[in-house]
């Protein structure tokens, strides 16, 4: 009985997602380790890292879906939270290099020695401890989102205005991180990491470990989002999304709900960034470019806004497409991405999951669902009932 209750709680797509993640968690490491390299079933380590990267993007997409799909806040600055989480992790990895850097300085990272700095800036202290870095991974994006959201939501900056100032925020951060004086490696960012918690980052074992960690984090993030969305608070969020003024007049403190979900979402994005950095081995200011944040929004739109599972599908799917295109037809990638933006907004307002759910009832009942043609808002409610 509890099984059906659980599956009902997760929803049909949610069940499939978690099962798929569980299968991936078992299959990918096994295929990498057990099958010989010439076997068709073998998965190369490079691919494992790539998949891990996609999972990080999926977590980022999930965090965007939480604010955009369920609360109507279109943030064009989530890439900034992602990058801040990445930088926090990168700082720890930098400190862990220790005296193995090019200049062999036991405390200062290479780029600081290069800039003739004599001591560590105050904000670099503590990052030699893993637990501290982990705390910062969620606290720094969370604090920024809290401060930013507190200001913006209290003065009722909504809609496109909010989108534009979140974009300005990530743009300002990008400019700031490009400066050498900031003490984050300037243009080059942080790189040349050696190991994490004593495990060599280049070793297959560590990479598989990071992949598994990404799978687990994605699953946990999905369950957390599901908890938020299905709770009473989640219902209020949907009310805010659909009719903000009405929710306010009924007596809900709209800005508090928004602030809560925005902050949680930013922390989630930070976590995604922290997982991303050890896998790709570099973090630099280009992660802050506004284009990155907007691209992340389109993942959500492609998969299906307000569905959570759709965000994961979009995050993984679009990035797979990107890897393929930039490898095979680099000229065409921007055409494809741009076309995707237009097609999805014009013809698939509910994304891939929307198409699937339109198609299924028709098959079962042979009656077209009449309301599905109104594209104004994603009909997330049909997913909730499942």
């Amino acid at each position: 009985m509890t099984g059906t209750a659980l599956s009902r709680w997760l929803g049909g797509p949610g069940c499939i997602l978690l099962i798929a993640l569980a299968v991936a968690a078992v299959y990918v490491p096994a295929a990498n380790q057990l099958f010989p390299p010439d076997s068709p079933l073998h998965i190369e380590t490079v691919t494992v890292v790539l998949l891990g990267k996609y999972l990080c993007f999926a977590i980022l997409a999930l965090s965007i879906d939480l604010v955009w799909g369920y609360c109507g806040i279109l943030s064009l600055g989530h890439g900034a939270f992602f990058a801040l989480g990445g930088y926090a992790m990168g700082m720890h990895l930098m400190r862990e290099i220790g005296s193995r850097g090019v200049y062999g300085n036991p405390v200062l990272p290479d780029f600081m020695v290069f800039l003739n700095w004599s001591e560590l800036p105050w904000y670099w202290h503590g990052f030699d401890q893993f637990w501290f870095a982990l705390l910062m991974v969620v606290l720094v994006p969370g604090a920024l989102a809290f401060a930013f959201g507190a200001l913006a939501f209290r003065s009722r900056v909504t809609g496109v205005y909010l989108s534009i100032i979140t974009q300005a925020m990530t743009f300002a951060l990008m400019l700031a991180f490009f400066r050498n004086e900031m003490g984050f490696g300037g243009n080059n960012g942080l790189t040349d990491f050696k190991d994490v918690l004593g495990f060599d980052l280049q070793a297959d074992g560590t990479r598989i470990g990071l992949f598994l960690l990404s799978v687990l984090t994605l699953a946990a993030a999905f369950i957390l989002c599901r908890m938020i969305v299905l709770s009473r608070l989640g219902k209020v969020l949907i009310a805010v999304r659909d009719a903000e003024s009405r929710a306010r007049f009924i007596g809900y403190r709209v800005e508090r709900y928004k602030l809560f979900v925005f902050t949680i979402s930013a922390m989630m994005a930070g976590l995604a960034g922290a997982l991303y950095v050890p896998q790709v081995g570099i973090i630099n200011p280009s992660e802050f470019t506004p284009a990155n944040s907007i691209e992340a929004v389109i993942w959500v739109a492609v998969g299906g806004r307000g569905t959570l599972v759709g965000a994961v599908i979009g995050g993984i799917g679009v990035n797979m497409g990107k890897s393929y295109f930039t490898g095979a037809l680099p000229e065409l990638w921007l055409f494809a991405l741009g076309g995707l933006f237009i097609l999805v907004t014009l013809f698939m307002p509910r994304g891939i999951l929307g198409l699937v759910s339109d198609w299924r009832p028709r098959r079962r009942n042979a009656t077209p669902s009449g309301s599905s043609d109104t594209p104004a808002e994603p009909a997330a409610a049909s997913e909730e009932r499942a």
Partner: protein
Amino acid sequence: MRRILLAVLVVASALFSAPLAAQQDEIRALMAELAGAKFKKTAEVVANLAATGDPAVVPVLTALGAGDLFFRKSDNAIFVAVKDGRRYQLSDPLTGAAAGDAGRREVKKIRVNNSLRRAIRAAIGTLTLLSPDRATRRAAAEAILKSRDPDAIPALDTAIAAEQDERTRGLMERARAAAVLNSTAGGPEKLEAVSVIAARADQDARSILLAALEGAEPALADAITTAVAEVERSLALWSMAQNVWYGLSLGSVLLLAAIGLAITFGVMGVINMAHGEMVMIGAYVTFVVQEIIRTQAPALFDVSLLIALPLAFGVAGAVGIAIERGVIRFLYGRPLETLLATWGLSLILQQAVRTIFGPTNQEVGAPSWMSGAFELGGLTLTYGRVWIIVFALVVFAALVIVLRRTNFGLQTRAVTQNRRMAGSMGIRTNWTDALTFGLGSGIAGVAGVALSQIDNVSPNLGQSYIIDSFMVVVFGGVGNLWGTLVGALSLGVLNKFLEPYAGAMLGKILVLVFIILFIQKRPRGLFALKGRAVDQ
């Protein structure tokens, strides 16, 4: 550069030195003493040459100072020698006529040291002060102003008495005052010199006065200190004016970039993320026009921008109308989706331009009337910047007139204020939408023509303006053209005033943070529209 200067001097002096054949012999005799001379002897010769007062010796002295004067070991004849491979090309120092060549070992350089070079410069200065050419006289006076050589005072006195041109005389008087301050002249004369120098308050005056402060007697030191303070106050004022100018210049660029957006976003409420690409298209139209003119009709180059303006308006406007009809009209009332779709469009447009023209920067030239600069008091203004400010204001004025005074503008405003009512009155709202969007895009294209003059014409041109443009429109107040004007200019000035204290990057960051905070305080911008319409 030095060689060219030398050649010019040689030619110029040859023109008016020809009749003085008798004197030329004297000069040649003096010059011959240079062969194998020691520094001391060379200094004597330089003084004697200067004493002839003949401008014909200027090229000789210039060559000597530059280390280009050689003598031939075989006959002690003096030549200007220019190294050409392993040999030297010789020419006569007075007439500039070619005189064959010589091997490395056949000629020997007439060596000069720093004190000699100084003497040579002063001698040239004195000689050229009386030149019939005004530019030469001015250059000589400037040289003395720099060297502050007291030996030049008598020459300057003669020159000042003879000078007809008022501005040149002023320059000479300043040069004389600078030389006096550097000399052993008495107190009253120096005091007068201080006031002459301080009268024109620029950076040079400040450094001349500060140099004179060393070892000055108390009364003079007091006068200099007050004068310096005055000069510095005036300098600070001018530098502030210069900052305002730079700010206005940046503001006009922002205005150009944002003004089309003020129509599409401000008036119509369409979040057009492809706006920057319209600017880029305008810039590329300019590039294409210039390319065609370069190959077909080079004479028209100076008017290439004027030809590009209507074309850019047409092309960008047509692309805008196509976008509106093809994509945006399906998305009215869904601003967030519009944002995403137009972002997609911007990616496609960028990549299309990249595919056609390549990813590198394209060369767009400036017509002659846009290059150069002029001085206004203590300000240096470049013509390019002046034209861009003028152009931005003209475009703005034209847009205001179109929206306020024409039938089309009336319809646009009617449709944006109350679509259904406007439709009931017989306005074709669909067409008005398309044309308004086309107008906004066309204006962006026109802006691209101007921005092609100051920015790199590359596929990424638009991207660098999109965030700034939105900031300007939102800051100024959506739906208000005057707000856009004030917003653009004030953000430009603010940016330039922050730059000296914070650096370019940090200044920009601070401005962004300022706008983000400002929007919290006034979510509808500087000049918000009143009423309920804005709540949609």
